[in-house]
């Protein structure tokens, strides 16, 4: 039924966007492969939506180019770019029925009537909104509205789908439902999808690759696994992961007996850590370690004062201190840990990350 060749390669070349004196995107380069699901992840104001709007042609580039396949589309109208877009606020046309919403774009580019009917029927079937076709957007629930918005993108048979935080306005349950559906849709269509979100769960579950952005610059581009396990910068490390990674500033000690990390409260061997650059003796570093890599261990050498325990059902989040250093750790729900207890912990070397405290780059 659907045409699996609808997919395109998208790239930004030295792309800059400024609003007056504010540079929102700074010489950004990004290659998105055919059929890839790429997520632009970042806090609000990082430029991710601006980048998406620039891909769409809704935002003019100040400098640089946007390419879709072998066409330089930098100065093309949105409708000529072979894109479809889904918005956070659904952006349905309130005075048109669902059918009118779905067919509006097709009417605008003068698609023959029977072809329109065929495409609308197809989109309605895929998204299971066939029984809603004659209603107005005002009569639909949030989830239904967003389905219609996705349907409007679907009928365009676009090569590239752009999503601007499409699930942010939905409640948690609907969000996870539609997330799965988007994933399925991507697999069925094989189209290139670019998805903007500030929600790391959406990013990690949907993406083939994630581009983490901050202040108009891509901090790291990688698979969800790479982003989570080997964050390229301290910003990426603290942005991704729930609860957040622990950060401890300390020093490297190189002795004949081995290499250690030390901060006055904590000291442990890091002989097995493979760093990108050799760590010098006396170098100040920022240790980053995720809560799951700090483990309760009766043989551990570090004393941990438990403060508060959060029970999340499938796991426990334990907040506490080593000396004056705050740490969070993740524990099995069965583990018998109580607040105000004193326990021993150890650190999993495989989960260590070291960052340069000045540049924030991974060492």
């Amino acid at each position, binding site marked *: 039924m659907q045409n699996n060749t609808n997919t395109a390669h998208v790239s930004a070349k030295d792309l800059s966007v400024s609003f007056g004196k504010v540079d929102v995107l700074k010489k950004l380069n990004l290659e998105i492969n055919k059929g890839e699901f790429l997520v632009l992840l970042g806090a609000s104001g990082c430029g991710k939506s601006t980048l998406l709007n620039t891909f769409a042609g*809704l935002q003019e580039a100040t400098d640089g180019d946007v390419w879709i396949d072998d066409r330089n589309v930098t100065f093309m*109208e949105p409708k000529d770019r072979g894109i479809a*877009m889904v918005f*956070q606020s659904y952006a349905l046309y309130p*005075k048109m029925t669902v059918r009118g919403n779905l067919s*509006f*774009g097709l009417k605008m580019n003068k698609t023959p009537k029977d072809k329109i009917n065929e495409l609308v029927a197809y989109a309605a079937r895929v998204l299971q909104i066939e029984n809603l076709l004659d209603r107005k957007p005002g009569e639909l629930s949030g989830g239904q509205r967003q389905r219609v918005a996705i349907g409007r993108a679907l009928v365009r048979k676009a090569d590239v789908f752009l999503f601007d935080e499409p699930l942010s306005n939905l409640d948690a349950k609907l969000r996870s439902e539609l997330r799965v559906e988007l994933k399925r849709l991507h697999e069925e269509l094989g189209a290139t999808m670019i998805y903007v979100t500030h929600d790391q769960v959406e990013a990690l579950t949907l993406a083939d690759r994630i581009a983490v952005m901050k202040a108009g610059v891509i901090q790291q581009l990688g698979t969800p696994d790479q982003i989570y396990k080997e964050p390229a910068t301290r910003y990426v490390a603290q942005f991704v992961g729930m609860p957040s990674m622990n950060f401890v500033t300390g020093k490297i000690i190189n002795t004949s007996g081995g290499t250690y990390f030390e901060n006055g409260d904590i000291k442990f061997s890091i002989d097995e850590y493979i760093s990108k650059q050799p760590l010098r003796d006396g170098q100040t570093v920022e240790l980053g370690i995720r809560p799951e890599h700090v483990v309760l261990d009766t043989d551990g050498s570090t004393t941990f004062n438990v403060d508060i325990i959060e029970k999340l059902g499938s796991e426990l989040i334990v907040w506490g201190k080593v000396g004056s250093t705050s740490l969070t750790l993740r524990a099995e729900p069965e583990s018998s840990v109580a607040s105000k207890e004193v326990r021993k912990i150890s650190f999993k070397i495989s989960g260590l990350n070291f960052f340069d405290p000045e540049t924030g780059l991974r060492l």
Partner: protein
Amino acid sequence: MTMTQSTSTPSLKKPRTIISKERIAIYLFLIICSLFFLLPLYIVLITSLKTMPEIRMGNIMSWPETWNTDAWVKAWSTACTGLQCEGVSVGFWNSIKILIPSLFVSILSGAICGYVLSYWRFKGAELFFGIILFGAFIPYQALIYPMIKIFATFGLYGTLPGIILVHTIFGLPIMTLIFRNYYSTLPSEIFKAARVDGAGFFGVFFHVLLPMSTPILIVAVILQVTGIWNDFLLGLIFGGRENMPMTVQLNNIVNTARGAKEYNVNMAATFLTAMVPLLVYFFSGRWFVRGIAAGAVKG
């Protein structure tokens, strides 16, 4: 938990209103105000229904002895303005001729201006908007002479297109303002979605935005109908002899020098002239308030 019993079935009866002294004072004030504004209307109406001898008795407030509609007929069809004796009916049709096209052109151009200023922001849009708004504060008497010269140059002076253009120009600042403010309350993502769907400048406007503009269109229609209908000066100056609007015609009837003053005819003519804006307010006042408030409340 015992509370739920009583709170889950709230009584639909209105809470008992307490008639306090403040409330009485407020009502009294409001009643006096409305009487103050209704009094002239009352006098116009009853005087128009009296005969001249009865009017001469001088009891201006008194109820007419007999209901007499002769003055109305005369005012509409045979009252004299100078040499012509055709009543205000000529003026009525002239006003309609001026009103309908002016209404369309001024609202449409204001709406498009507002649309451009909200969605197609160009360099200097703020300045442009500032200049348009400034236009709203210039007393138009100051512009009349230069405009006459310009219109005369283009052969528009004293023509129907001329007076329509004048109303469009003077209506533009306020129309632009209300449409711009209305459109800036609509989510911009709808505009973006329409662009992605391939709608062009007018496609977005006519297919997407205009259908969403009903509340503000009503406000615009009310403002322009009353404004254009009640206009006297512009119609007198720019309309030309052929297109004298009803207000000018009314003035000519009232001020005609021949014979005794027929107050009942004058009153009837006045009432007939005021009828259009009155009816517009009467039937759409509710929408007017709603439309004005539309900008203040999130849609």
